């Protein structure tokens, strides 16, 4: 059997682990157009901030590929899939045969069409090579920078630069930062917090031109204002690398469409990670969910599917975690409900930078924003994922004392939903009395 995996990141690497758990013998080829050994791109902003070194970027033990006997082709691009011949054509003109193929090609940054965007000193932050270019600018004595976009990557980049002593301005088209991830009131708290720490946020405006001789020197906003910048970081979201799939006739929309077993519309070709669209359990819609844990889970399941284990991927709950200086934010599920029939519960203390919001749909928790105090977040993600009726619990969500013990009555009542052994483990001494 020949397995071939394109993309050596969260999805691809985790698929290998699953495959090797059941198939020690077959060939596994791994193709990456990045000329690095596998690393976690989520750590790139930490690398820029100076809180870790390149040595820390690998997310699996260093001997992972060797131990799993992977034929790793790095620095080469998979250019075409020859489906009938069951081969992948590489940029170095070589060919890799496959019986099962995984597309784990991820996503790439959206680059807006702005005059001057191609100038030196204008970079996205997606790859280690992007980070190295940005590092070069910082080392060369960078003083001012502009971040385009107030999403998670934009904010992480801005924070990293601020940590390195660079004066940063974040330019955001929306009325507030993190507009996809949180709501206006919480975003305003975060903005206030950042501005006190020297990160300036300019909302409802956009960059219309990037100018400078060869390198960027300044940007012009749509209101005519000009801002000096020795570096521009582009944080305008990502697009899935779905071209390979499209060319071979795999069904795609924005991302690749997959079945519950992670197979694409072409038999024996699977897909996982940022390149696919998946079912969002909280919105009930199929969408792009470009997140590390999602890519890990899908990669693992795709690997199992490729070794013919039966797999039924239910879908995902989008979620993210962001820490800027000492302020932590976790958002889970649907935070800006657009349909009717949603109810919300909010607690806010702006002075203490605290905010908690819970979003319910028909007595089920479907989303939360936790700012400031985040330690019990996982219990909320459990309740969201399990889609249970939480009407009897709602009132205590906001309390400081909220913890796992408070959902125990629930777990006792719904053993078929909380079926993982670990829940039962916490209740062994209670069971005889309460489950009759």
């Amino acid at each position, binding site marked *: 059997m020949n397995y071939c995996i394109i993309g050596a990141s969260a999805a691809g690497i985790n698929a290998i682990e699953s495959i090797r758990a059941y198939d020690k013998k077959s060939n596994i080829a791994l193709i990456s157009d990045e000329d690095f050994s596998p690393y976690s791109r989520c750590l790139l902003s930490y690398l820029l901030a100076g809180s870790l070194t390149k040595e820390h970027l*690998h997310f699996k033990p260093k001997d992972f590929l060797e131990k799993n006997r992977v034929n790793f082709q790095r620095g080469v691009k998979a250019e075409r899939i020859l489906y009938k011949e069951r081969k992948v054509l590489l940029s170095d003109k070589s060919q890799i045969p496959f019986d099962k193929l995984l597309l784990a090609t991820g996503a790439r940054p959206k680059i807006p069409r702005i005059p001057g965007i191609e100038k030196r000193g204008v970079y996205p932050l997606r790859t280690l090579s992007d980070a190295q270019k940005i590092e070069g600018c910082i080392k060369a004595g960078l003083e001012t920078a502009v971040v385009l976009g107030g999403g998670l990557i934009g904010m992480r980049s801005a924070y990293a630069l601020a940590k390195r002593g660079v004066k940063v301005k974040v330019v955001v088209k929306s009325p507030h930062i993190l507009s996809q991830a949180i709501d206006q009131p919480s975003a305003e708290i975060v903005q206030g917090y950042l501005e006190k720490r020297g990160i300036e946020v300019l909302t409802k405006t956009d960059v219309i031109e990037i100018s400078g001789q060869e390198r960027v020197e300044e940007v012009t906003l749509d209101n005519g204002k000009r801002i000096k910048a020795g570096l521009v970081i582009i944080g305008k979201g990502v697009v899935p690398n779905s071209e390979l799939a499209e060319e071979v006739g795999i069904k795609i929309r924005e991302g690749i469409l997959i079945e519950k077993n992670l197979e694409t519309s072409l038999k024996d070709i699977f897909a996982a990670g940022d390149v696919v669209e998946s079912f969002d359990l909280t919105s009930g819609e199929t969408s792009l969910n470009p997140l590390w844990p999602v890519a890990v889970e899908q990669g693992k399941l795709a690997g199992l599917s490729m070794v013919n284990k039966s797999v039924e991927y239910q879908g995902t709950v989008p979620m*993210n975690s962001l820490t800027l200086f000492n302020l932590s934010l*976790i958002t889970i599920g649907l935070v800006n409900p657009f349909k009717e029939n949603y109810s919300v519960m909010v607690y806010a203390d702006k002075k203490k930078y605290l905010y908690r919001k819970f979003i319910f749909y028909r007595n089920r928790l479907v989303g939360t924003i936790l700012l400031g105090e985040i330690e019990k977040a996982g219990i909320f993600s459990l309740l969201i994922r399990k889609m249970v009726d939480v009407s009897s619990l709602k009132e205590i969500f906001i309390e400081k004392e909220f913890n796992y013990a408070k959902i125990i009555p629930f777990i006792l009542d719904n053993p078929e939903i909380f079926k993982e052994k670990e829940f039962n483990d916490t209740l062994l001494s209670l069971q005889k009395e309460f489950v009759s």
Partner: protein
Amino acid sequence: MVKIFCDIKKCLGCRTCELACAIEHTQAKELFKALQEENLPQARIENEKIMINNFSFSLTCQHCEDAPCVNACISGAMFKDEKTGETKCDTDKCVGCWMCIMVCPFGIIKQGKKNAVKCDLCPEREDFACVASCPTKALFGGTREEFQNKLNNSTTQ
């Protein structure tokens, strides 16, 4: 898989385990000296009130078989020990992104100063600090089967 279990019927909610755990995870391993250390002692076990019968119980990492924290970890710090099944955090690799906190169904991973703080089953001692400290012997360190046996024996007595 060895981990910490709590007999809810024996737990008084005295929080001695929290203190013992916090002290065990300091350099000095002694309350007075520990309070002078740079990082204040932090417990990895937590006593929580259940809303039934005024019960409370002490909870710590369940070392989940399919551990959500390991799947969510962006740095590879959180991992399963292949031999023991223990969920471990390599604090040298942990960057404090709190993705693990976001997904821990027990809400039992804590924010340390720079990295995630969780039950490590007391690697520096033979027994477990929380278990050793428990005045009513409500806490137990061992496998699920061993704990189940212990419960069965105590009810038949």
